[in-house]
């Protein structure tokens, strides 16, 4: 149970008081410990904004430049803090603009609560101005959603929204509130939600599944751990490290699991999946016991399913019963919260080491290093690589920055080469692959963790999808560091066109504007690097800067990301070139 802040206590279970629905919404947020929310006003949510004005000393509303970015900022906030992010928008287009962020939060299990205004209840279904069925629209992409038409429902529904968003496998919740409910007065009192009778957030762990898992792990000669975001969501980083070290098991991560175990850990053998590391992908099809923890065997991780680890016994530690046997048939499923399951598992696991097996990973790493990594990080060719930019960021931030990446080649490079020495350091759009995610998510991340260095690494394509958020960064004086890796292409699609569509570069070449001038137009310090000799100093200047900083690095136009598991191929058929 989280401890309550003084502000929260002030708004919790106070005597009943007659207030409007809109004031109740703000007080509910305060009772839930919300200190910042992201949003955009409009007709159907105006009463709430009027209350936010009155409460502005207690709750900070950040005006994003587009509602999609309010949702992404809330995601960034949630991902780095582990708390619930909040986004707010008006009805109609305001609400529909949130949907991409909501879908992203759903597939990446991010706890956010979105509050939308709705036309007055007597106009529902009449095609009123800015009316849209946002509850209907958001149903498939929310963990839960609800429409409120009476002020008296507000406290219970908002309490439930926060509870559902953050409990169990987290996810987005949308609450749609009609304008008449915002105006209506009622006797307000707030109680936190502690349970919903139809909802089991964390399934019971069967002790026999723990001992079965331990037996498989103890008998394994070539065990492999693959962990996902479940470790981060259940705050099980210490327990993961303990298991890895005690049983001496090489451990790989999915893109969403990155940073739960430091990059420098000797048993951290890298990323799995389409652009993951060579060794863990190849050896997935060689291990004898595969221990999957808080990950969901996404197709980008598994490649061809019927050639995925068919030789191995599969142990799956998972909080969501719907994920068990969904893609990969497990031999032992351990249902429950990852931290709790690991705590129960640890005493039953024998001290062990698998040096010969670990050596195989090291040998394959050497191959990957020679064929790929060396050229990415220490290129001898003239053109700048994305990898060397990441290398400089690592040096300047000592691998302690939170890297917020967008979607595409730069994202894969960032995940592959960023040093993640602190947990919750890889904030990216994993499941949905939402271009435009990084800049607004970096806003939320920086505000939730002002003491951390937040570096947004973005491609020139995705950057232009949400570039207007420079305005939010400027207005709120947020010292976010923005690095655009400009190859004048939609690079990942171009790479596929090169490899699989005989270099027919259909609609992937971009003629870009003067990015530095645009950043400067928002009064953000900006520089462009085109030469290797300027890179290190400029990255240093960026990191040393106290305010927001924009850095454009012109990288080679047709660089490719390798290794690569071609779509539909087996993970062990991963290509190095």
């Amino acid at each position, binding site marked *: 149970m989280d401890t309550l802040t003084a502000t929260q206590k002030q708004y919790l279970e106070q005597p009943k008081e007659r207030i409007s629905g809109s004031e109740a919404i703000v007080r509910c947020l305060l009772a839930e410990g919300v200190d910042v929310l992201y949003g955009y006003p409009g007709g159907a949510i105006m009463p709430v904004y009027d209350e936010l004005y009155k409460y502005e000393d207690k709750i900070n509303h950040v005006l994003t430049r587009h509602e999609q970015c309010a949702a992404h900022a809330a995601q960034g906030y949630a991902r780095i803090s582990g708390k619930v992010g909040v986004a707010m928008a008006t009805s109609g287009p305001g609400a529909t603009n949130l949907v991409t962020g909501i879908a992203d939060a759903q597939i990446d299990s991010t706890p956010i609560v979105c509050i939308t205004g709705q036309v007055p209840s007597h106009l529902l279904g009449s095609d009123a101005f800015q009316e849209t069925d946002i509850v209907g629209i958001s*149903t*498939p992409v929310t963990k839960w*959603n609800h429409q409120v038409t009476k002020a008296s429902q507000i406290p219970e529904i908002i309490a439930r929204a926060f509870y559902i968003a953050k409990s169990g496998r987290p996810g987005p919740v949308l609450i749609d509130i009609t304008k008449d409910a915002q105006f209506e007065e009622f006797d307000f009192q707030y109680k936190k939600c502690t349970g919903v009778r139809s909802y089991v957030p964390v399934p019971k762990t069967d002790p026999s599944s723990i001992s079965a898992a331990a037996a498989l792990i103890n008998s394994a000669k070539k065990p492999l751990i693959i962990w996902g975001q479940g470790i981060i969501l259940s705050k099980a980083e210490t327990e993961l490290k303990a298991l890895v070290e005690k049983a001496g098991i090489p451990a790989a991560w999915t893109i969403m699991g990155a940073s739960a175990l430091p990059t420098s850990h000797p048993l951290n053998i890298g990323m799995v999946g389409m652009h993951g590391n060579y060794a863990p992908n190849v050896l997935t099809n060689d291990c004898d016991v595969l221990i999957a923890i808080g990950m969901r065997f996404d197709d980008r991780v598994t490649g061809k399913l019927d050639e995925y680890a068919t030789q191995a016994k599969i142990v799956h530690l998972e909080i969501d019963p*719907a994920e068990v*046997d969904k893609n990969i048939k497990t031999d032992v499923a351990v249902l429950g919260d990852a931290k709790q399951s690991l705590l129960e598992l640890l005493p039953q696991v024998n001290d062990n080491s698998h040096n010969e097996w670990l050596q195989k990973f090291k040998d394959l790493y050497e191959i990957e290093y020679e064929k790929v990594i060396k050229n990415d990080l220490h290129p001898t060719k003239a053109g700048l690589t994305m990898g060397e930019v990441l290398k400089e960021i690592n040096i300047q931030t000592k691998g302690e920055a939170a890297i917020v990446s967008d979607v595409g080649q730069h994202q894969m490079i960032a995940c592959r080469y960023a040093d993640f020495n602190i947990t919750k350091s890889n904030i990216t759009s994993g499941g949905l692959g939402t271009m435009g995610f990084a800049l607004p998510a970096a806003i939320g991340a920086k505000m939730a963790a002002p003491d951390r260095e937040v570096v947004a690494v973005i491609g020139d394509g995705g950057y232009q999808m949400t570039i207007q958020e420079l305005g939010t960064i400027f207005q709120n004086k947020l010292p976010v560091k923005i690095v655009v890796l400009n190859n004048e292409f939609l690079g990942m699609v171009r790479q596929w066109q090169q490899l699989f569509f005989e270099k027919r570069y259909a609609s992937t070449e971009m003629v870009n504007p003067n990015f530095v001038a645009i950043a400067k137009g928002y009064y953000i310090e900006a520089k462009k690097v085109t030469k290797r000799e300027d890179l290190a100093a400029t990255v240093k200047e960026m990191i040393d800067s106290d305010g927001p900083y924009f850095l454009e690095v012109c990288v080679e136009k047709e660089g490719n990301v390798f290794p690569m598991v071609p779509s539909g191929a087996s993970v062990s058929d991963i290509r190095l070139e």
Partner: protein
Amino acid sequence: MATEKKLYTVSVYTENNIGLLNRISAIFQRRHINIESLNISVSEIEGVSRFTILIHMSEDQIKKILGQIEKQVEVIKAYYHTDDDTIYQESCLFKIKSDLLFEERQIQNIIKESNAHIVTVNKEFFVLEKSGRRAELETLHKALSVFGIMQFVRSARIAVTKDELKITEMLNAFKNQ
């Protein structure tokens, strides 16, 4: 075999909330699964609804679908059953010209033999109701269609299980937490 397709009845106990139908039907729609029939009604527990969904699929698939259904916050519990696990019925109504009842002696025999019952008769038409298994309903439909049917409608399958479903215990357990 778990991959062989057959007819399954899915029983879903849920809270009685607006929007839940949308949420559950979206699970099928997203996976391009056709719902053979769907019935939503009250259940034996006050305030708890019961969905009865008939689908044609493999056991492997249905287990995954059940996981997706149970994952919905307002779903209390979902089960799947084969025909052998349940007692099930469908119901249908025939609207037929009243003249035929008097002119075609055969119709009266069909009604008697099929255990259908007449709901109402007036000068223009009469309405015949028949509950039972799909095959019985189809047989009756075939027999009557020779004479001409003005309107026909068949309900979704409803089913109760032979085994006990422990929903009340589950809800009590929550109350006592």
